[in-house]
């Protein structure tokens, strides 16, 4: 496996798994309008995943397409950030998770637009427009809930405290990240960190939420080490394709 293949898979899987998670809200959102809102985010993310998985398949050169990569890989072959596989919880928790990822993807896609790899740059430019809206949506909700009632404040602060540790993985560079940065394909993740932090701090301040302390902890989902939640998500997502290989309608 080349570094670039794995790098693109990381980008793709993060979108795919988060898109699948958001899809779980369809039919269960607090209001019809939010049902559509979350479904729109989900479809944007799955669209990004499709472009990236298709490209990953080409890079791999073994004839695997987007469906094969999405539906026939096992848990340890998924390279998404561990945060995105965390369960939805209540609406506030889903929104906090979304904010943390949106702010990260904003910085990431902004940088990837200038990637030395034209395919990645192309996807990033398209995704950036979508991500700007995602951030507007999630930041608006975090402020509304954080600065809302006592209960909504307590719930989103709780979600933030619980999910914060997973954000360390965003900026933890390994040899693949460093190789991509050296080739001008990806950004230096450490350099994205202060901008992400500033963006998040602005929202938290307006939402009257406290930024949790950093703890020395990370899952490294992007290296294939996942929490117990991903397997259940994949079982549901991949069931049809595995039970009826090649099914179409």
């Amino acid at each position: 496996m080349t570094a670039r293949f794995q790098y693109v898979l990381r980008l793709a899987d993060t979108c795919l798994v988060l898109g699948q998670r958001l899809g779980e809200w369809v039919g269960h959102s607090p209001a019809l309008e939010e049902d559509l809102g979350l479904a729109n985010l989900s479809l944007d993310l799955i669209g990004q995943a499709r472009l990236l998985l298709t490209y990953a398949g080409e890079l791999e050169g073994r004839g695997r397409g987007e469906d094969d990569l999405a539906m026939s890989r096992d848990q340890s072959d998924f390279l998404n950030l561990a945060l995105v596989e965390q369960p939805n919880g209540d609406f506030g928790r889903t929104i906090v998770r979304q904010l943390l990822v949106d702010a990260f993807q904003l910085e990431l896609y902004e940088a990837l637009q200038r990637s030395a790899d034209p395919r990645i740059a192309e996807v990033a430019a398209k995704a950036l427009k979508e991500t700007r809206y995602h951030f507007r949506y999630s930041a608006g909700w975090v402020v509304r809930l954080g600065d809302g009632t006592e209960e909504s404040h307590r719930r989103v602060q709780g979600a933030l405290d619980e999910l914060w540790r997973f954000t360390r993985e965003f900026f933890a560079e390994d040899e693949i990240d460093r190789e991509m940065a050296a080739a001008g394909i990806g950004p230096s993740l450490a350099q994205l960190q202060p901008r992400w932090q500033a963006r998040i701090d602005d929202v938290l301040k307006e939402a009257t939420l406290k930024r949790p302390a950093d703890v020395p902890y990370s899952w490294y989902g992007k290296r294939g080490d996942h929490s117990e939640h991903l397997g259940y998500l994949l079982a549901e997502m991949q069931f049809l394709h595995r039970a009826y290989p090649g099914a179409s309608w």
Partner: protein
Amino acid sequence: MTDQEWPLFEVFIRPRSGLEHKHVGSVHAADARMAIEHARDVYTRRQEGVSIWVVKSNDISASDPSEAESLFEPARDKVYRHPTFYAIPDEVKNL
């Protein structure tokens, strides 16, 4: 959560630059910003618009249907208000 429903907002979409905003429906939302996001998600999924207005339904004053007779009937027999009595020259094609 409270039992209170979000207020209703009326949604107006401008389909293209140069055209006027048209009423397309309504959404529930807690505030104007959320109303625009909801309107975007509900009414512009298929590229229906380039601009959105929202206004709280409560802020719209409407004519009373029971007054329709006095408001609109008087115009019925004033046909001279329609520009239908002018002879149009043959050279004018698109009028």
